[in-house]
């Protein structure tokens, strides 16, 4: 029983970082229907720069993390403005390919600048201290990640539902022509969306960095976040978070009771299954574009 509870708790713990990545991907998808494969690497660059200012320039945590989030917002907006917007005759497939290209470029920059040796970021909370709930343990960093993930989800949900900017974002996704006619600067909306998404991804990265940092560190969370988002229907914020926790829990239960060798691929088996049974995802309100 303890083993089962530990596996579920561990699943929730690891699910939080998937959830943050999933949220980041959903925000961009919601407004532009582009799956952003550069999501992880955008966060990667912000995290390594944070590491650099913390280790070599003696910044305080507060300054470094605030700076990281600001940089992430800028980076997201900049990439949208400087790269994606420049695409000629943009279609969704072309955009996705562009994000894959960006992913490679950003990873290349980080590998080149920071080298191959793994690193670790100093952090106010040790990733190796843990809290005990009875016989079940969860690390303090994971508790923090859990809180951050739920907070971000709630804030984004409220933002998209009640703020003017949030509503404009939704309008842009649903019919960008009509949105433009109503006076919404859709280009600017897209840029802001990329900025927000990049910040959320950066949060995920900053919460992973205290363990180990290396140029590949965001790839797995990004893929798992993507899996979670697909499961949740790609447009639903709570859906992607729910999907992330489900994947985390299934992974851990699968690893504990079925086969540890195939633990890391089980997430992708789930995607295939979900796409076969309910192609629009578990949480999507099916949105059909009128022709």
């Amino acid at each position: 029983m303890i083993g089962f509870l530990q596996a579920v708790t561990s699943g929730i713990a690891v699910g939080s970082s998937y959830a943050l990545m999933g949220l980041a991907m959903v925000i961009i998808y919601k407004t532009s229907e582009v799956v952003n494969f550069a999501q992880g690497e955008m966060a990667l660059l912000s995290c390594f720069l944070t590491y650099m200012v913390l280790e070599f320039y003696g910044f305080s945590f507060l300054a470094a993390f605030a700076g990281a989030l600001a940089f992430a917002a800028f980076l997201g907006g900049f990439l949208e403005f400087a790269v994606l917007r420049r695409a000629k005759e943009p279609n969704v497939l072309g955009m996705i390919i562009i994000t894959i290209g960006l992913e490679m470029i950003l990873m290349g920059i980080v590998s080149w600048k920071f080298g191959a040796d793994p690193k670790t970021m100093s952090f106010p909370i040790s990733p190796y201290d843990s809290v005990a709930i009875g016989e079940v343990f969860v690390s303090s960093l994971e508790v923090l990640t859990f809180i951050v993930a739920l907070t971000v989800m709630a804030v984004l949900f409220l933002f998209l539902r009640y703020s003017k900017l949030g509503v404009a974002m939704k309008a842009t996704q649903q019919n960008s022509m009509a949105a433009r006619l109503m006076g919404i600067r859709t280009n600017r909306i897209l840029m802001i969306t990329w900025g927000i998404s990049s910040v959320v991804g950066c949060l995920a990265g900053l919460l992973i960095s205290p363990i180990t940092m290396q140029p590949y560190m965001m790839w797995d969370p990004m893929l798992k976040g993507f899996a979670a988002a697909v499961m949740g229907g790609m447009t639903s914020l709570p859906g992607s978070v729910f999907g992330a926790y489900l994947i985390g829990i299934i992974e851990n239960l699968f690893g504990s009771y079925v086969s540890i060798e195939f633990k890391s691929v089980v997430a992708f088996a789930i995607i295939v299954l979900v796409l076969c049974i309910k192609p629009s995802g578990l949480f999507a309100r099916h949105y059909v574009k009128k022709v």
Partner: protein
Amino acid sequence: MKRILLALSIVGMVLGVSLGAAAEQGVTDTEIHIGQWGPQTGPAAPWGSVARGADAYFKMINAEGGINGRKIVYHMFDDGYNPAKTKAGVKELQENIGMFAYTGGVGTACGLSVLDYLMDRKIPWVGPSAGSLDWIHPPHKYLFAVYPLYYIEAKALCRYAIKNLGKKRVAIAYQNDDYGKNGVKGAEEELASNGLKLVAEVPVEKSDTDMKSHVMKLKNAKADVVLLWVTPIHAVRIVGTGRALRFAPQWMSTSTCSDFPLMYTISKGLWGGVIATTFGELPDSDNPLMMKYKKEAFDKFAAKGERWGVFYTAGITFAEPLIEGIKRCGRDLTRERLVKEMEGIRNFKGIGGRISYAPFDVSKPYECRQGMKEVYLVKCLKGGEYEKLSDWMEIR
């Protein structure tokens, strides 16, 4: 006149052909081409310094005037620890430029992907950077292993755990490929000879990042010693997850995770107390040869930001016997001659353990093609310092 010309041209052709046969691929009057692959990116990137260590070593040799009038031209490439890329890269080097020989090359799986290619073409390969049984089972005429077997390392660690630490419940977390399985095999054999068994064998995939299920399996098995046959990053994650799950066995690891200053830093100090095997002089050693390499190779030729760590010096250790063999060939440098000279190496002492080879004999793979047969144990102290736990041990 015509006849004379014909005769001359025939003589010329014959001479030309024979000259062509004498010249070996990858060797000219002034150059020797040597190749190596190694991960400079990806999860195994910390081992990439093996290839860079060899680079500085060769530059030092060139700066000292080369070997018998020839300089070494060194070609290394990044394969990202991906066997498919290793194979493509080696083919490219061999078919576009033509290497005389290869040295080092990180990774059991990466090496296996080019083993047949190199051996079919009779290209010598000295010191694969992996202690796999595959190099000598079966032995190959042109392949000279240096790295002591992981299998031997596992035996040495288990022996120490049982005899010196009085432990009985040994478990292993191993990378699910030949590297990891070699460790499992060694541990199983050593435990069996003491009437014991592994209490848990937990496979780790290279793509795994979350280690909780793995650690729970080890914890549930009540292991008091855990061998880590994984990459440095996975090793740190396992020890860290163990700490968070309040599981504290004696962690032990292979030479691949024996770069203590690095491991200590990236584990935020959790690597303290870990015992590992190693097969070379330690970076802070006062061994004269080590000090020479530090001064003449590392200080002069290493890139900015490079670290004088155990993987860097291992790159030199793997290349030393190749250089010794090439030296012994004199000006007559051919692959066959190199093999003959390598087979004559006995108790060669560079910065690793003693290295000996013997004439090729399929029935004695360990004697004829496994160069280094000894290891010793070290413990990680505070700040990533080394404590020597044993002398060189030769284990069968």
